[in-house]
């Protein structure tokens, strides 16, 4: 089994899985606690539309998908702030628009549907060095922004108290949604559009079951998100099943365990 990880593509897969798992569960803590679980799904589909656009324009899909998804994330946040529609509705609208746009773009050109489908379900074993570099940069950025956790947590606990203490809550909301979009886009290649939300939500939900404090929840979510990658990858390699599915099912198993063992 160990020799499998001497293969460069397996090493890249493992590293990508760890980075994406860690990033998604870190932000997932805020997503879950703010009841924005649907946001992961919405942005994944925005990423999909971006990828379709990139393929149509014959560009590297990532470079098109990143600005596209970040733009949609900012728009969702803007609509949320401007109206009383509710988060799920604002997200749902852009979710639908993105899917419609993605399908339309795919239909415009014959021949690249298989590429686009690969993004729907992800293919962790085809992660390129460029993909890894982008993930690494994003992880670095998140590390640099780690001091902001305390403000994000405060506004998540009670938005009004945070505002009363002069926290620029709105600016933080925009920043957070842009970061979530970035993480979702770089994860699409690894887990696929349909499973991204699981990466964001399940480790955080599991962590909440076993944590007394928000700090503990954050740390455990990152641990769960990264630790479930290895067994998932091994299962994928030995049983020849899609890695994204195997990892998500591992996460779900941990969730079930936490639910059962919780005091």
């Amino acid at each position, binding site marked *: 089994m160990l020799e499998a990880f001497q293969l460069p593509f397996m090493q890249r897969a493992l590293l990508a899985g760890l980075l994406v798992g860690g990033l998604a569960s870190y932000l997932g803590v805020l997503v879950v*606690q703010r009841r924005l679980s649907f946001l992961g799904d919405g942005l994944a589909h925005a990423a999909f539309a971006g990828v379709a656009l990139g393929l149509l324009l014959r560009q590297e899909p990532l470079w098109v998908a990143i600005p596209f998804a970040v733009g949609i994330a900012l728009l969702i946040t803007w609509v949320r702030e401007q109206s*009383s529609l509710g988060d799920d509705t604002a997200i749902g609208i852009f979710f639908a628009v993105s899917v419609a746009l993605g399908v339309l773009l795919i239909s415009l050109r014959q021949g690249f549907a298989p590429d686009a489908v690969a993004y729907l379900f992800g293919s962790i074993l085809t992660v390129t060095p460029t993909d890894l570099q982008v993930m690494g940069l994003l992880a670095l950025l998140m590390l640099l922004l780690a001091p902001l956790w305390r403000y994000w947590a*405060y506004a998540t*606990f009670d938005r009004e108290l945070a505002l009363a203490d002069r926290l620029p809550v709105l600016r933080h909301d925009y920043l957070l949604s842009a970061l979530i979009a970035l993480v979702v886009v770089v994860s699409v290649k690894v887990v696929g559009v349909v499973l991204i939300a699981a990466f964001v939500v399940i480790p955080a939900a599991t962590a909440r079951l076993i944590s*007394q404090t928000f700090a503990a*929840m954050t740390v455990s979510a990152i641990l769960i998100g990264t630790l479930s990658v290895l067994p998932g990858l091994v299962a994928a390699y030995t049983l020849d099943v899609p890695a994204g599915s195997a990892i998500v099912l591992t996460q779900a198993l941990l969730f079930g365990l936490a639910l059962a063992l919780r005091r």
Partner: protein
Amino acid sequence: MAAPAVEIEQYSVRFGEFQALQEVSLEVPEGAFVAIVGPNGAGKSTLLKALLGLERGSMRDGPTRVVGRIRVFGHPPREVPPGWVGYVPQVKGFDRSFPALAIEVVVSGLRRHWPFRIGREERRQAAEVLEKVGALHLANRRLGGLSGGELQRVYLARSLIRQPRLLLLDEPATGVDVVGEADLYRHLEAYQAERGATILMITHDWEAAQHHASAVLVLNRRVVGYGPPEKVLCHECLSQAFGHVGHAHQVVLGGR
């Protein structure tokens, strides 16, 4: 002469088509204990939020329009050092699923952000103030497991730990038992004696307002009455505020 703690001049707030506050003017001298009373929807919470610089609210029913002038210790609300003001929000459908210990909530009042870890000195300060409000035993309890009254004590400790010059309390006695309410006033009066702080407190408990406050503000979108309790809590003022004065208020006022 020092600026009054709170100065409000011709202050109005409109939420869309709805006039929540109309031409409210009032001045609160430093060291006063003002009880704010009035019917539901009278704009009491809106007024406190205005003092915190939160008047713009969310765009629930169209844009919020605000006119008038507010000064807190001579500053516009948003320019008041946040450490000067302690705030206990109205109990609302707050998110009990947020994983937090009571002591973290208290420390967040000191730091003005959320603690990742709590240092020894902070722990000592938090314990001290929790003790003062009779909630030391709650320090390491999960927030989600606290009763309504316990929660109010923790929030009060949270607002006191920064030793504010101005305390804004939105129905802090809600859900607190009779002993707890007596305690609450005792803590507030002790804190006020110690720091010379100014207190603005929204309450529906007229009797307590009458006994403890140095002034009462009767609010119903506009100022119906403002002054010493015995002057303001008269029959006419109350019927003007509420349309009619129910039996309960007659009982409250009956003794005078």
